């Protein structure tokens, strides 16, 4: 906009309606903060399962970003890979795969995650289900055996010794794993899910940075303690204690990185509580009574489907309105 006044030089100025300031937030920055927050989990993966996991991560990210770029091109849309969301999907998917997973299968998972999980709905912001979890659910159905083959940590030769996860050990063999071991992460499990401490560092960072709303993870923790606790109080031998639920499997990773995905979680504050509690309820039912030892993925996907409904029925009270 150019403007002149009688005795003043010409200025080039913008015209826009207020507000004229913006917070530090922007999409790109938020996405990269998530990537940063996942680094401790990546490091724990390398420590416990070896450098090969970096290859899986690279393949998953590469195919995720590639798929997004191709689909955007086909649909004649602006290629938005620099927004970092494709990278996050690939990275998240890799971290919830079993260690030493087949690279070709990984690539397929990434293509499905982006293609069916995200772009088919219209891309970032329009998807209903968490894309990384869609990818993993597909792999679970397509390749059930490799998807449940858990390499023993600290043993880096591919396909050598397998182990049980704490959840399957408890479910099928009634063996309880030490909580302290689970906290550090020296256990069987997905690439980036075994080390509670690495996940907590990243997750708390996101909460304090303001990217993740604490309500969803808090509701999940409260839900797991309540619902898991009820069964534990009924029969402490048959059912694990609530702390076990919190530190086992993908609970922490799911609570801090999956369920908190902006796009697929509720927008209202009340909705976030309902969503988190719902995930934990479904999770405990699957873990204790389902055919699978682990249920974080399905619990989150299940609740993702309810998000539009939750949003609709948790509209905040309008200031001054008496309900």
């Amino acid at each position: 906009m150019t403007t002149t006044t009688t005795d003043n030089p010409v200025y080039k100025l913008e015209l826009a309606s207020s507000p004229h300031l913006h917070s530090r937030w922007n999409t790109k920055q938020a996405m990269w903060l998530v990537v940063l927050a996942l680094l401790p989990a990546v490091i724990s993966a390398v420590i416990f399962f070896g450098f090969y996991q970096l290859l899986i991560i690279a393949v998953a990210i590469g195919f995720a970003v590639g798929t997004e770029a191709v689909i955007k091109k086909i649909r004649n849309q602006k290629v938005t890979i620099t927004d970092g969301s494709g990278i996050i999907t690939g990275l998240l998917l890799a971290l919830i795969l079993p260690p030493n997973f087949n690279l070709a299968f990984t690539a397929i998972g990434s293509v499905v995650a982006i293609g069916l999980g995200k772009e088919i709905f219209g891309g970032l912001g329009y998807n209903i289900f968490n894309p990384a979890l869609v990818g993993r659910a597909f792999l679970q159905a397509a390749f059930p055996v490799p998807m449940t083959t858990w390499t023993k940590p600290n043993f880096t030769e591919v396909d050598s010794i397998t182990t049980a996860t704490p959840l399957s050990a408890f479910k099928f063999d009634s063996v309880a794993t030490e909580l302290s071991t689970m906290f550090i992460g020296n256990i069987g499990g997905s690439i980036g899910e075994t080390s509670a401490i690495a996940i907590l560092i990243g997750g708390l960072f996101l909460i304090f940075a303001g990217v993740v709303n604490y309500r969803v993870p808090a509701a999940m923790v409260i839900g797991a303690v309540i619902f898991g606790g009820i069964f534990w109080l009924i029969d402490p031998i048959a059912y694990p204690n609530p702390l076990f639920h919190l530190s086992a499997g993908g609970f922490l990773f799911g609570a801090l990185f999956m369920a908190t995905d902006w796009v697929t979680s509720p927008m209202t504050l009340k909705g976030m509580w309902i969503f988190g509690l719902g995930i934990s309820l479904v999770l405990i039912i699957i873990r204790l009574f389902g055919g699978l030892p682990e249920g974080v993925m399905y619990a989150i996907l299940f609740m993702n489907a309810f998000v539009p409904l939750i949003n609709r029925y948790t509209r905040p009270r309008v200031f001054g309105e008496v309900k």
Partner: protein
Amino acid sequence: MKLFTSTKTFQGGVHPAEYKELSENLSFEIMPNPKQVILPLVQHIGKPSNPLVKKGDDVKAGQIIAEADGFISVPIHSSVSGKVKKISTEITPSGFPKDSIIIDAADSNEIELKEPLNPETVAPEEIQQRVKWAGIVGQGGAAFPTFVKITPQPNQNIEAVILNGCECEPYLTRDYRFMIERTEEVIEGLRLIMKSLGVGRGYIGIEDNKPEAIKKLKEAAAKYDNINVEVLVTKYPQGAEKMLIKAILNREVPPGKLPLDVGAVIQNIGTALAIYDAVVKGEPQITAALTVSGYGIKEPKNLIVRVGTPIANVIEYCGGITEDASKVVIGGPMMGVAQFDFSAPVTKATSGILILTKTEENLHEETTCLRCGKCIEVCPIGLIPTKLSRFSQLDRFEDAEAYNITVCMECGTCTFTCPANIPLVQWIRLGKQRVLAMQKERKSA
């Protein structure tokens, strides 16, 4: 260390960078009179004033040159002594051209004053008449005729007068300087308002980021046990009427209602001083106090200028604008109006002129809504900005109405926060106008 901390506030809100350090320690300077003033006949909410002068007339500073037209209107006084050059349509800071009286200033600083009144013995009716004569309008932004607000109406039950010293908009330090430089007079101004309305309780709401002003006000208010200085959380928009009443009285103004409906009258610090000046000094409202700030102005200042001074003159007086200036805003950065013509004048309600740069604006590319819910979390009114903005984009005005779009006070916290950089409040503003038009049509049908 913070001297005062508070927990009194409202739900939601944001914490923009304050940028007050640019001007908070600068005392008011009186800017020399300009060679010409432009006095729009509408500087307030209500009917335009009727001009009483014509081209070629000699006028004195303080002389009424346009009279109020009806109840919700105010008279306009010449802000300088000189000669009426013409009455024509000129650009105003609102962006709309309005009929204005243009006066060529003579070299004189004389002002026509009314006789001073004793604030202790003055009658409520005298205060109201004096404020009406002085043409005072609210300094908080809306520019509502002040005498209407300080005249008690039948069936009204006002329990408290609240002075708004929050100044929650970034950059602005005008009210802060007033509270520091004219502390006693602020309190006396509040007492005049209370007297006029026959109200026994007065509050001054101030954010906890102004410890020096809080200290001074508390000292000055100590001798009156019916005046409380309320320290509030520093958060935008703490100075919005509804938010201020919530924080101080813990009452909520229902949608579509006024502060009066919950027994409160809010006045700005600047308005209280204008009332004091009118009653005690006999001055009409012919000056505006404003903060000139932003990284785009060479010398930030707190200024007292004559109403009608062109923005260009003020900018020039402050050393001009820098190379990287990107936007000129009248008012605060959150709710102010961007300017395209520097010949627009300072009006009675102008509180600031901000010259911003790209760095401060911090704008990014707009992306799709990520459904993060941050706009909902910060909305002080409990709306769903992302949905309202979407409804506006899609012309779904019935849905927008059902989602209470008309309650929006356009504070801009949603747009400020949005990580996707969606112009939420801008869309809502558009939709709100359409819904209001729709409602009007429905009523008349």
